[in-house]
């Protein structure tokens, strides 16, 4: 009798090992995107945030932009704005406007529009002092000055 008991116990244990752990409850894991974060800042060095700027979000349905804004709001002190996406709409155009400054950007959820942290840092780095552009501008102006000097010198020689 004792050996039968042991046999039953070991059978139960074996079954417990073989069966999937949570056989009685199906586990469902779903991913949700319930918030899109928008960051607005001024370029040209420093990346100062666009604080308290007006934000207008337009939803794009079947490749066509809705004429009426989906949602409007204001950025916070750090230039951030958060909005919940509309059901079944994955493309948005976000317009940020503050006293004469305006910028817009398309956000596409299906294409993985969210920037990774590294990409974001890179973008902010680009917004820093544009040394290359400064040199380019100086180059143009130096060229104009040079041509004018040559012409002025010719005029004096005549």
């Amino acid at each position: 009798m004792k050996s039968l008991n042991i046999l039953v116990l070991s059978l139960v244990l074996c079954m417990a090992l073989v069966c999937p752990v949570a056989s009685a409850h199906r586990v469902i894991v779903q991913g949700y995107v319930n918030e899109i974060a928008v960051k607005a800042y001024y370029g040209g060095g420093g990346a100062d945030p666009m604080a308290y700027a007006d934000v207008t979000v337009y939803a794009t349905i079947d490749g066509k932009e809705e004429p009426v804004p989906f949602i409007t709001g204001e950025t916070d002190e750090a230039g951030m704005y958060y909005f919940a996406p509309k059901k079944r709409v994955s493309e948005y155009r976000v317009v940020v406007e503050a006293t004469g400054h305006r910028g817009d950007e398309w956000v596409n959820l299906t294409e993985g529009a969210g920037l990774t942290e590294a990409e974001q840092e890179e973008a902010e780095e680009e917004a820093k002092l544009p040394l290359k552009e400064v040199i380019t501008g100086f180059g143009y102006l130096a060229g104009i000055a040079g041509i004018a000097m040559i012409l002025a010198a010719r005029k004096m020689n005549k």
Partner: protein
Amino acid sequence: MVHISDGILDPLLWESGWVITAIILAYTLSKMKIEDVPKLSVITAAVFVASLIHFQFGPTSVHFILNGFAGVTLGLLAYPCIFVALVLQCFLFQHGGVTTIGINTINMGVPALLAYLLFKYGMRFDLGIKQKEILFGTLGGGIAVALAVLFLSIELATTGEEFFEVAIFVATAHIPIIAIEAIFTGITAGFLATVQPELLCRR
């Protein structure tokens, strides 16, 4: 702050901005001599990079304009100076917008011309002080920025924004810019008057 971007103003407004800028440019350039161009280029280089020097003041970011400085040193040529600087800023730094270069040039260039007139006619007064350049340089440098702010507020009022609200907001943000540019222009004008008077515009 004072660079208006594309897509904000009514097309009629920026189109007329281009027309007025073209007229003033044609007039000022007709007064230009080839000998003025090197000086024009140097001042333009300063105005061009000035917009990169910016800082956070209150809720917004403000940058230097140096339009009063251009007016005091270049006279009528301050207008083409501002125009070229804005074109370069637009294409290289994406400051402002392509369509609004005309109206932005008015916003900053017309105050520059007024600063020049103030400096020119102010210098004719006998005030009994030695360094009149410092006084009128300071006034010109400060007033030019203040007028640029006023012009911007008027234009933004046409887009439906409350004029006084915008004007007070933008003007408050620009208080440090007005102060610093006034002092800078005043000191530079005083300095140039002693060491290199031909660099100041008195024509």
